């Protein structure tokens, strides 16, 4: 019997199917479940039904969305924010779940610290009540975000009903040019296929450009899969993956045997994908968004679009709406557009190489606007400080914060003021995402650093050291 060639996705799915329903969803086994402050609804449903957590040993609590970025020694001023952190602790203690809390050296954004602790491994299913769980796909794990009812379901059963998604392969040919980062590549991909372009699909990223990326850059790519609507993003594990994982706290004790098993986790020659997209990575330029969807990403040399040149009435209205919200004038160059503030952080771009890239631009320079740099985890923060990166940011006049989600979503009170324009390394430029009326331009860490120096959107290639 010759077996059919299978994709990486199919191999992982098939290894996790507990029950298969011919008519729709399969019941999947879940290997790792991360919960955070916002998971309280899920715990509430569990408690309401009088249920217990089936596998507390596979469940990890992480404080990230609401943690303060400043002065952790001080009590939290907002009682509702403090309540969110207390609630997470209470749920973790009551159900016997490990907690990476406010004063824990493992604390950080769940999608930064999970991999750092060696909890995310090739071939696993990883879920969290957070859409950017797609990040974990960088390791060849099937990671996807779930809602509160599903959080309760995983807590109670360690399984989840899921409909098998379709398979989309995106192949990035060539190599990225100097000063062009993974963030630029994923923004270019989203611009190409659209914010809904991968709905119902799991994306496997392949090609020379992807293989050449380090793990942190691969996480940036997979992180933003959801911004194209994908259920998950995947990159086949390779020697880069295994070398990055070796020696981390929770990797398998027999690591060599694990690596031997993981080497089979790749799409077979001739495996069928439902869709294929290819693009030339070498042609990608430093990229920024102008509108209120990541799909509005354009090369930094581009201009704000002119809605009157759009023949389609629906698209024209959509451009008008975004230009209005963003306070832009059609036809103006994006390069040189004045900004009010900079945010370098989030689960997309708050890892050590991201901070190094931003610091390389800022070293010996002053920021022309205020800004906040928030490392993704305590471990990342310590590593950055050991290299003196915190000094570079502080000397430039930026604030060096405590790890967490911070100004990506503003739940801890780090907000962009109404009407302010922010150059951000995060993943969402939705209206109100960084605060009511906030205007967000997404870009890479080096581009955000360049924007800080110029006080305006800038082409990092002109400032590069």
């Amino acid at each position, binding site marked *: 019997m010759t077996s059919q060639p299978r994709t990486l996705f199919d191999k992982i799915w098939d290894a996790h199917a507990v029950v298969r329903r011919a008519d729709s969803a399969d019941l999947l086994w879940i290997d790792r479940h991360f919960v955070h402050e*916002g998971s309280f609804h899920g715990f*509430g449903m569990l408690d309401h039904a009088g249920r217990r957590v089936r596998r507390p040993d596979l469940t990890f609590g992480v404080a990230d969305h609401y943690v303060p970025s400043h002065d952790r020694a001080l009590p939290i001023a907002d009682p509702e924010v403090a309540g969110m952190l207390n609630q997470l602790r209470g749920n973790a203690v009551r159900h016997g779940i490990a907690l990476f809390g406010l004063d824990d050296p493992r604390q950080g954004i769940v999608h930064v610290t999970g991999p750092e602790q060696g909890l995310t491994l090739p071939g696993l299913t990883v879920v969290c009540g957070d859409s950017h769980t797609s990040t974990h796909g960088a390791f060849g794990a099937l990671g996807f975000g779930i*809602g*509160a009812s599903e959080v309760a379901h995983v807590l109670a059963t360690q399984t989840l*009903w899921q409909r098998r998604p379709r398979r989309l392969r995106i192949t990035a040919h060539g190599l990225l040019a100097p000063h062009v980062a993974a963030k630029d590549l994923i923004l270019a991909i989203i611009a190409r296929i659209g914010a809904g372009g991968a709905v119902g699909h799991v994306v496997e990223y392949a090609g020379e450009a992807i293989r050449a990326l380090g793990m942190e850059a691969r996480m940036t790519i997979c992180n933003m899969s959801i911004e194209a*609507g994908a259920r998950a993003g995947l990159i086949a594990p390779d020697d880069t993956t295994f070398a990055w994982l070796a020696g981390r706290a929770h990797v398998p004790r027999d690591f060599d045997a694990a690596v031997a098993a993981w080497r089979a986790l790749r799409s077979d020659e001739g495996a069928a994908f439902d869709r294929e997209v290819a693009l030339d990575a070498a042609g990608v330029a430093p990229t920024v968004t102008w509108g209120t969807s990541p799909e509005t990403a354009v090369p930094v040399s581009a201009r704000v679009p002119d809605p009157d040149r759009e023949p389609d009435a629906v698209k024209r209205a959509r451009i008008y709406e975004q230009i209005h919200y963003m306070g832009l004038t059609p036809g103006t160059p994006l390069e040189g557009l004045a900004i009010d503030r900079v945010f370098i952080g989030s689960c997309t771009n708050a890892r050590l190489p991201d901070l190094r890239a931003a610091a390389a631009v800022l070293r010996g320079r002053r920021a022309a606007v205020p800004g906040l740099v928030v490392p993704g985890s305590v471990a990342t923060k310590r590593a950055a400080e050991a290299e003196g990166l915190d000094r570079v940011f502080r000397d430039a006049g930026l604030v060096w914060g405590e790890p967490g989600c911070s100004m990506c979503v503003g739940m801890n009170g780090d907000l962009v003021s109404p009407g302010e324009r922010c150059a951000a390394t995060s993943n969402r430029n939705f*209206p*109100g995402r960084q605060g009511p009326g906030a205007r967000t331009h997404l870009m890479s860490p080096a581009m955000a650093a360049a924007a800080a120096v110029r006080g305006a959107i800038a082409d990092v290639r002109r400032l590069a050291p």
Partner: protein
Amino acid sequence: MTPFTVLTAPVAVLDRANIDTDQIIPARFLRKPRSAGYGGFLFADLGVRLPAGSAILRAGENFGCGSSREGAVYALVDAGIRCVIAPGFGDIFAGNAAQNGLLTVALSLDVPEGTVLTVDLPAQEVRLPGGTPHRFAIDAFRKQRLLEGRDDIDLTLAHAAEIAAFEAADRAARPWAAIG
């Protein structure tokens, strides 16, 4: 949760593409307990007010994209919405909706606000006043859950033996999946 069968109601319209869950409910409300009632948070920063008594919403492409927050569904449900009709939905949003008795119908339907529609889940069609029915597709499992208004966890626990058997076999098959 309330079962969904057949619903006849006037439609409210929010015809914009990519209405993400941050716009459906801004992050600052997510810390509220469900008992607070989420209806008042719906579209809080959009300046959109749905006509009173709206139970069906017609929305634009890629509705509910973005964050996985189930609060977006709570806001719609608590505001009285039982069905959203749009050309396409964010996957996580659509899954969350089904968990809360909110039907998502993937259909391009160009009808003005106030049109009285009948959404018939058993027949999988939306009927316009006096007009032809519009068929829609829905996953069989999701349909069954909505029709019965049943809790998923109960259904899953009926498979407890299979889960336990999988768990035991998997330990041997994938020793590397254990926490090291």
